[in-house]
């Protein structure tokens, strides 16, 4: 077989078995990747098939006399994005702050237990968050809503009659914020601690204060990571079912976040699926498909943002 030498010691016949091992192992790993794509394809296929009737239904075919699927799902899309958006607005600064605290501010001995404690937040089941939001947080926020309405009522989001039960989109957003906080925190923390010491020390050696060092070295390095952490949190917030279903007192779309009203897609599905059949079921699954597409788009945007900043990132 070999052309160079008659009996090359490099062609060890026993090695063939070893090579097969490599092939099998890499093949298995590849298969696992393919399985994931297949599962996702199945999920997508299932969603599409089950929602086709609702998507293609004409006037009068939809349940409860809805005029069109899009006018049904549209307000909920807004509600879903609103709830997750407000949640992120609340959670992101706090989460980044906590991550910074753990990575750069807290005494080294404290930071590990603190990280553990924050991770615990992620471990609390969403039913418990829902129950907590419904029974404890909502009523707690009622005075705040009244205060906001009185003094900031001219801003549309505080415009509506404040809820007497506190079970509003804003409360739901706060609960979501609490739920996504540990996710964002732990990812940001991982990235912050990986900031090259080289760049941190470069900043400090120039006479930078700690905050200036964070601005010069940590944030530029972590920018992409923060974006993807926030996106991960957003994914969680968009898809959260039980907590929102328990906390929110849903209703038609409206600008005010402190009165009852608005609805998110996952909560709508959870609340109505049990009694749904026929077309109603198709509508709900179609709503699920819409949510799926939103997640997809959000992730694409995140990827885009991350890749746009790649060349500036400190990883070299």
């Amino acid at each position, binding site marked *: 077989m070999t052309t160079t030498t008659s009996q090359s010691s490099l062609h060890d016949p026993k090695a063939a078995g070893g090579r097969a091992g490599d092939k099998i192992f890499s093949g298995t790993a590849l298969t696992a990747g393919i399985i994931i794509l297949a599962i996702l394809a199945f999920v997508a296929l299932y969603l599409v098939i089950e929602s086709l009737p609702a998507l293609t239904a004409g006037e009068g075919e939809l349940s409860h006399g809805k005029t069109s699927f899009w006018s049904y799902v549209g307000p909920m899309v807004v509600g879903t994005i609103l709830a997750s958006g407000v949640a992120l607005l609340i959670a992101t600064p706090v989460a980044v702050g906590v991550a910074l605290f753990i990575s750069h501010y807290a005494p080294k001995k404290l930071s590990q237990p603190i990280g553990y404690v924050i991770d615990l937040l992620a471990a609390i089941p969403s039913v418990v968050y829902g129950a907590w939001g419904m029974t404890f947080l909502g009523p707690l926020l009622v005075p705040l809503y009244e205060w906001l309405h009185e003094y900031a009522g001219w801003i549309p989001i505080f415009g509506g009659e404040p809820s007497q039960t506190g079970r509003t989109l804003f409360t739901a957003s706060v609960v979501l914020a609490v739920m996504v906080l540990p996710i964002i925190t732990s990812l940001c923390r991982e990235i912050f601690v990986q900031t090259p010491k080289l760049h941190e020390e470069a900043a400090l050696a120039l006479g930078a204060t700690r905050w200036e060092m964070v601005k010069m070295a940590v944030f530029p390095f972590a920018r992409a990571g923060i974006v993807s952490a926030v996106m991960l949190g957003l994914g969680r917030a968009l898809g959260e079912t039980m907590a929102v279903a328990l906390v929110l007192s849903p209703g038609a779309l409206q600008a005010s976040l402190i009165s009852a009203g608005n609805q998110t897609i996952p909560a709508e599905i959870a*609340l109505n699926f049990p009694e*749904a059949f026929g077309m109603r079921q198709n509508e709900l699954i179609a709503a699920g498909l819409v949510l799926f597409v939103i997640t997809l788009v959000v992730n694409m945007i995140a990827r885009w943002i991350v890749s746009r900043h790649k060349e500036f990132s400190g990883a070299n």
Partner: protein
Amino acid sequence: GSNNPTPENTGGEANGGGSLSGTISGGGASSQEAAMTAWIDGFRSVESGATVQYNPVGSGSGREGFLAEQYIFAGSDAAMDAEELEASQQVCGPDGAFHIPGYISPVAVAFNLEGIDSLNLDAETIAGIFAGEITTWNDAAIADQNPDADLPDTPITVVHRADSSGTTENFTDYLAAAAADTWTWGVVEDWPQEIVAENAQGTQGVVGQVTATDGAITYSDASAVGDLGTVAVKVGEEYVPYSAEAAAKAVENSNPVEGAAENDMAVELDRNTTAEGSYPIVLVSYHIYCNEYADQETADLVKAFAEYVVSEDGQSTAEGSAGNAPISDSLRERALESISGIGVQG
């Protein structure tokens, strides 16, 4: 006690201290869950070898699961429509499925006003409150009917069900029939979005919300209202508070659904009734069975369970647990006759 409470029982194997064995699964209305838990437990003590399980997935899913052969029987707050009945022939043989009103429960209109346990209201006023037209408790419409009550000027907080619900359907059915001018949204399972109000998930959710909110009002399965004040509804010239008897009476006085089969006990409630002592806001939750099952074992098991549910023993067990209204004797007789027809597909 005996597990064969009725002489009509023809299934030979189905008597004696538990000769049956096997598992039957049902699914459907969550309104029946508490009662079903009691029935399952009671049935187990009569037929120790047999297991019944029930998944409270909701009426719609229950009917659908039944038609998809996922459940042997279904619990449903609403009767099957013609289309579903036709589909049931695929599963149940040529005679299809039939309904038994196994669970009857009054729907209370409950409120939280300090010091007031009961209010008299007519259908128009109730509709006005729930439509958001009457907004304070000392509104003339309420005060006129309750001269003795010391009504505060607290705003009324309407709390309705957030989820699709048979209770909502029955309640709006009453409003639409008895106060058609004020309630213009018809019979719905989902509360109309145009009415801005508070809401919560499930019976427990709305009751909890009302209990926590001064001046709130809701409608709910009467068994769950606890210490809340309740409304006596105007029927004819008198005000009738909810009660098991009043609810059972309303069902008894109702008419069979048009064109239903002989043994099908689906009913059309008369919400506008003026019959003395009947309470028209009542929820009837059916048990849906096949006329014919694929094998003898299943048929026997279903028959035994169905008989137990409507038996005096079964109904009182359920009442003790779930607080529903036991069905009247005449209804029971008709039900047992229908059930006795369950057989095996030829």
